[in-house]
């Protein structure tokens, strides 16, 4: 099964493989959430939502409902 960003565990790193541009705001793409970029889960709030991520060097938080539209491959951990 294809992994999404919502499946990533704390401390794991992944590479973004695809983003569904209809579901993802342009702003998130502009902040570096693009195919090929490295992503790491820094911290999760209670109930694992929202997620505090390091995408391509930018630290940001998004909700799980957005994260499921970002496909990744786990690269370590």
């Amino acid at each position: 099964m294809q992994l999404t960003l919502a499946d990533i565990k704390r401390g794991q790193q992944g590479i973004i493989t695809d983003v569904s541009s209809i579901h993802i705001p342009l702003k998130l793409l502009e902040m570096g959430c693009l195919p090929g970029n490295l992503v790491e889960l820094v911290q999760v709030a209670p109930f694992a939502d929202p997620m505090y991520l390091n995408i391509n060097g930018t630290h940001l938080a998004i909700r799980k409902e957005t994260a499921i539209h970002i496909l990744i491959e786990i690269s370590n951990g």
Partner: protein
Amino acid sequence: MAKQINVALIGNPNTGKTSVFNALTGLNQKVGNYPGITVEKKEGICKLPRGVKAHIIDLPGTYSLNASSLDENVVIELLLNKNDKDFPDVAVVVSDVENLKRNLLLYTQIKDLEIPTILVINMSDRMTYKGIKLDIPYLEQKLETKIALISTRKNRGIDELKEVIANYKELSVKPCLNASEIDTDYFDKLRKAFPNQLLYKLWLVITQDVNFGKVDRNQIDAIHSFKTKSEADLKRLQQKETIKRYQFINNTLKKGQTIDLNSAKDLRIKLDRILTHKVWGYLIFGIILLTIFQAIYDWSSVPMDFIDSAFASLSEWTKHLMPEGAFTNLIAEGIIPGLGGIVIFIPQIAFLFLFISVLEESGYMSRVVFLMDRIMRRFGLSGKSVVPLISGTACAIPAIMATRNIESWKERLITILVTPFTTCSARLPVYLIIISLVIPEGRFFGLSYQALTLMLLYLIGFGAAIVSAWILNKVLKIRSKTFFVVEMPNYKVPLLKNVALTVLEKTKSFVFGAGKIILAISIVLWFLASYGPGEQFNNAEDIVTQQHALDNLTQDELDQKIASHKLEHSFIGIAGHAIEPAIRPLGYDWKIGIAIVSSFAAREVFVGTLATIYSVGSDEEETIKNRMAGEVNPILGGPLFNFASGISLLLFYAFAMQCMSTLAIVKRETNSWKWPMYQLVIMSAFAYLVALIAYQFLK
């Protein structure tokens, strides 16, 4: 005459753009609004080398030129409109050395507009700490610009930046990449259709409709006919454009920037492990809130008592010094107490803005947003609603404006509607004076009862906001996309200069803004209280003297009786008696009634109104508080401000929507009178009901 050039400061949020602005302009700055909208416009003057003067605009922070909010739209409107009087001769893009990659996206977009552009790389003091090295000459060549490496924190590089700005004519206006490669056919057609226009400008105008739809396209109106692509296609193209730009940036930084991760130390991770922790995070947030409330109550009480008594003596002193007459009375009984009602605010407002700006500047506020999102979402709010709800404790007006970065319209609307429930600083004087009258002194675990009551009132305010948000979330049938993206900036020690300027500027604008209303109302009130129609008012002296002819009163006592008889039959007394039946069940007399009615203009008028009414009623040298404590309930006897009526008043002020400025802002932000009218009617009716129940139970 010295030449003046226009400089626009542009940059991502959290890059220290405002610090650069403060460093360049110092105190030569003013804050206004863009015409017709409530976006803050900051401008200032900076002296450059060789007698050149720069007019600097600090544009709202934005991640790109694709606007998704009113604030960001301001940036595009200015950069697309060559005829604007503020159109920049040179753009200064401020970036943060740790987020250079992301910051450069906006830079490449601005370069495409062919405006001379300078790249400022701020926070250079953190380079060694983070193991970052930059090849400046290489970057300057690739990015077709001059780079100013500065640190506002260490005050380094500012003079060099001024030098580069002064020499802006030497800058290249060549774009640093060719974005039209993403769809050559489409852009060729566009170029042929509008040969005299800049390609990127056309593209921006076309795509703004997708994202926002409010660009003023006076010169390029014909572009409407050039809709050859669907919105989804355009969005896909924008994505391609973003990828293209990042490819260029990545290639440039691969050579121009080296990061040695081994020498990088990260305080962020350690701090975040505690501050965003599932338990400790919330605990720390709670302690911070508690400290703020204690500070507002305890620390500011000393300057406030001083201001209160200073104005009482000033009023007395004026009476002695100036010849007797209506004019002296207007000053001593109308204007001075009215002014006192404004000035007494200053310590608390300053404290509040101090805390809020420290929380924002340090980067902690984003962690609170992160921690609270899940909880707030249950109530139909967003984590980002926490910022308006907290800054609503200063004033609802900037708080409602701060809702603009909430992506979902429904969450934003609910936040706007419930924010006025939070205890704004205008309620504070009312709370403080009533608490000091009806809540006993004494301490509980080191916290005074009075401070605890105040904290309880804040909690009631938040509680009312949360509960009504939950109800609104169920009632409102609005479907809107929910996006939530929040940047988690690095922790920073707040810059003293930035904090001081924020506190100074916010306090000033608040005091002058509210001050005008308060002053006008106290003058009107003084007139209404000093004059009246008919026999009862004009012949008050004869009537009272006759009534008490046999009572053997001293002259002082008689004068008091005359004054209060006059007040009762003045215009304001008549109006007050007319509304008394409505407010008596809440435990108030007609004087409080007048204060409540005038507070619908602005809550803070309450204390000033009572001050004006009471100083007309007596001429002894007393503070407002002592006069209020001395008031007697005309029907039941006993002090007018007792526990029951005090609590009832506190609750009334906690819930009632009494602020015309807030209603005006809500109208502007929601674009309809519907929502502010709902707020006015529902909140005030609820306030009346709660105050009624409280008084009837407690009396």
